[in-house]
C-alpha cells in the first residue's frame, strides 16, 4: 500500500508542476502575441487609454504608470504576478479594477458551463455505449447520424432552434435571460445564482434560474456530445475485445455485471481526459449562447468588450478562461490517475 501511495504523491506533484508550467506558458503566449501586435510602448499605451483622443503627454503618463517601456522580461514577470494575484489592471472603459467586473460574470457562466459539460459527457457516454453494444446495427448508425448533424450545426443554429420550438412555439421554457427579470435576485453570497438562491432559501428564484438554464445548457450539450460519443464507442469496442472481458464472462459473471463492472470502467478511462476538452468546448459555446439567450455571463462580457474595443477586458477574459481550462485539465489528469492505477507509474 505504501508504495502505491507514494507513487500517487509523486504523480500529483508532477502534475501540479506541469499545470503551472502550462499556465505560465499560456500567459507567455498571450503576452508574446500582444507584443507582436503592439510592438511599441506607445501602441500599448494607446490601447490602455482606450479612447480615440489622446495627447502625447497622456501617452507618456500611461507608459510611465504601467511601466510599458521596461524590459520585456520584467514586464512579463509583473504581468504573471498580477494575473496570479487577480490584478488585471483597470478596465479601459469602466475605469474600475478589472477583477471587479470579472467577479460578477465568472460565476454565472461557470455555473451553467459546468452543468453543460456534465450533460455533454453523460449524453456522449450513453450514446457511445449504446452504439458499441449494438455496433453495426440500426441504433449505431442512427446515433452516428444524430451526432454528426449535431456537431456540424453551428451552436447558434441549435440555440435558435431550441428557442423556437420550446420557447416560442410550445411555450414551455423561457427564451431569454438568467432568470425572471421581475424577481429580485437573492443576496450575492457566492455569486453563483443557484447556490445563492438555495442558501437564501429563495426557491422561486432558484426555480426560475433552473428553468432559464435548460435551453442554453442543452444547446451546448447537443452541439458537443458527439466527441464523447465517438470516443466512448471506439473505447468500448476496444475493451470488449480484450481478454479480460472474456475472462469476466468465463468466470460466469452476468452480462450486466460484465458491462458495468468491467467494460464500462475500463472504457470510460479515456473519457475523463475528454471531459476537460468538452469543458473547453462548452466555454467556447458559452460565448455564442450567452448572446442568443441574453444570458449575462462571461461570454456576454467578452462580446461587449469586443464591440466596445475594451482591450483590457478582452485580454483578462482570455486569460481567465485559459486558467479555468488548465484547471479543468489538471482535475481530469488527477481523476484519471485515481481510476487507472497504471498511470501512477509514469
Amino acid at each position, binding site marked *: *500500500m505504501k508504495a502505491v501511495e507514494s507513487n500517487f504523491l509523486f504523480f500529483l506533484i508532477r502534475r501540479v508542476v506541469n499545470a503551472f508550467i502550462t499556465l505560465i506558458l499560456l500567459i507567455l503566449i498571450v503576452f508574446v502575441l500582444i507584443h507582436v501586435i503592439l510592438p511599441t510602448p506607445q501602441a500599448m499605451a494607446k490601447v490602455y487609454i482606450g479612447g480615440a483622443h489622446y495627447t502625447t503627454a497622456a501617452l507618456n503618463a500611461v507608459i510611465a504608470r504601467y511601466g510599458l517601456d521596461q524590459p520585456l522580461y520584467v514586464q512579463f514577470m509583473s504581468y504573471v504576478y498580477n494575473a496570479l494575484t487577480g490584478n488585471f489592471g483597470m478596465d479601459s472603459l469602466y475605469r474600475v479594477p478589472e477583477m471587479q467586473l470579472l467577479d460578477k460574470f465568472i460565476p454565472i457562466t461557470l455555473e451553467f458551463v459546468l452543468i453543460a459539460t456534465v450533460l455533454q459527457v453523460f449524453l456522449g457516454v450513453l450514446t457511445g455505449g449504446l452504439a458499441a453494444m449494438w*455496433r*453495426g446495427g440500426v441504433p449505431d448508425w442512427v446515433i452516428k447520424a444524430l451526432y454528426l448533424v449535431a456537431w456540424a450545426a453551428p451552436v447558434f443554429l441549435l440555440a435558435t432552434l431550441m428557442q423556437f420550438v420550446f420557447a416560442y412555439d410550445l411555450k414551455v421554457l423561457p427564451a431569454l435571460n438568467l432568470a425572471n427579470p421581475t424577481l429580485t435576485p437573492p443576496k450575492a453570497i457566492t455569486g453563483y445564482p443557484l447556490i445563492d438562491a438555495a442558501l437564501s432559501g429563495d426557491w422561486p428564484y432558484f426555480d426560475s434560474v433552473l428553468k432559464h438554464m435548460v435551453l442554453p445548457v442543452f444547446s451546448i450539450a447537443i452541439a458537443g456530445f458527439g466527441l464523447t460519443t465517438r470516443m466512448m464507442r471506439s473505447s468500448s469496442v476496444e475493451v470488449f*475485445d*480484450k*481478454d*479480460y472481458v*472474456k*475472462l*469476466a*464472462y*468465463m*468466470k*460466469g*459473471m*452476468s*452480462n450486466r455485471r460484465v458491462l458495468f463492472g*468491467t467494460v464500462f*470502467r*475500463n472504457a470510460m*478511462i479515456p473519457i475523463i481526459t475528454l471531459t476537460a476538452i468538452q469543458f473547453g468546448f462548452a466555454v467556447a459555446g458559452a460565448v455564442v449562447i450567452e448572446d442568443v439567450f441574453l444570458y449575462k455571463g462571461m461570454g456576454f462580457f467578452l462580446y461587449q468588450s469586443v464591440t466596445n474595443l475594451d482591450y483590457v477586458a478582452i485580454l483578462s477574459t482570455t486569460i481567465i478562461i485559459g486558467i479555468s481550462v488548465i484547471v479543468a485539465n489538471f482535475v481530469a489528469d488527477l481523476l484519471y490517475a485515481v*481510476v*487507472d*492505477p*497504471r498511470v501512477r*507509474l509514469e
Partner: protein
Amino acid sequence: MTASLSIRDLTVYYKTPLGLVQVLDGLTADFEQGETVAVVGESGSGKSTMGFAITRLLPPTGVVEGSILFEGQDLVSMPQKKLRDVRGTGIFMVMQDPFSSLNPVKKVGLQLLEAVQIRMERRGEHFDYGSASKEVLKRLYDVKLPDPAIIMTKYPYQLSGGQIQRVVIAMGLLLEPKIIIADEPTSALDVSIQAQVIALLKELQQQYGMTLIFITHDLAVANVVSDKVLILYAGRLMEFGDKRGIIQKPMHPYTQGLLKSFPSGSYREKELYSLPGMPPSFFSLPVGCKFSDRCPYAFDRCFKEEPGILDVEGRAVRCFLYGGARKNRVA
C-alpha cells in the same frame, strides 16, 4: 466412462468484409471426464477458435454450427442466460496472454473473490467475506505463489506474466469447474517458468479430477502433459488418440512430419527436418485434403476430395491412406 464433453461436427465461420471464412470444419471428438487432452496445432490452425467456440465466447463475427454436448446439453443451441451458468463452474478457460487476462483497474484479490462469490451463489451458499478470503489465500498458496496475502492487494500491472498465469489458474480452481481449457498458457512465459506452470497444472488436474484441454503448438509439452493428443491442421482434426500411440506410431503424414522435426539428439543428425511449404491461409484453402500440398504421400484423390474422419485401431485419422471414407457434408 461417459464423456464429459462431446463435440460433433463443429464448424466455425467468421464474418469478414470479404465474405464468410470457415475456420473450423467438422471437428468431432469426445473428451472423457478426468483426462487431459492436448490440442496441438501451428499458429493459425484454429486452436484458439476451438477454445472460444466451446465456451461460446467468439466475437460477434463468429458463427457456430454443429453441436457441443456438455453434461447432456448442447452448448451451441443454448440461450445466453443458461450459458452463463455453464461458464465458470462448468467450463473455465485460461487464456494465452497473461498481460491482458486480468482487469487492469481492479485489485487481484477482488477479482478472485468475485470468482468465489459466483461459485457460492450458484450453489446457494451464503457469501461470507472472511471464509472466501481464506479460500482465495489457500488457492494462491496451492498455485505456489509466494506471499499470497500481498498478491491479493496488488494490481495486475504489478505482477509478472508467470504470476498472472498462476492467479488465473487459481481463479479456475476457486470456481471448481468440470473442464478447464488452457489456451497456450505457457507460450508467453520463460522456459523455466513454463515447466513450473505445466507441472502445476498436471498436479492440480490429478488432484481434482477435472478434464483438462491443453491447447499448444508444442508437441513436446503435449507429450508431458496429456493422456490424449488431438492434432489440428487448417481447422480440421487430423489425428486424435492416445498420446503414447501417436508419439510412437503416428498415422497421419502431418503428425509424422511434426515428430520428424524434433531434433533426435544424436551426433549423426546433419540437418533438421522441416515440413515443406506453409500452412494455408483460411482465405485460400486447397481443394480436397487441406494437407495435400505438403504431403509426401499425396495421391490423386487427395487433391480432389477431402477425407472424412476414420476410426483406425481406436484412433481417429483424417487421411485416405487408411481407407476410402469420403468426408460427408450436408449440402
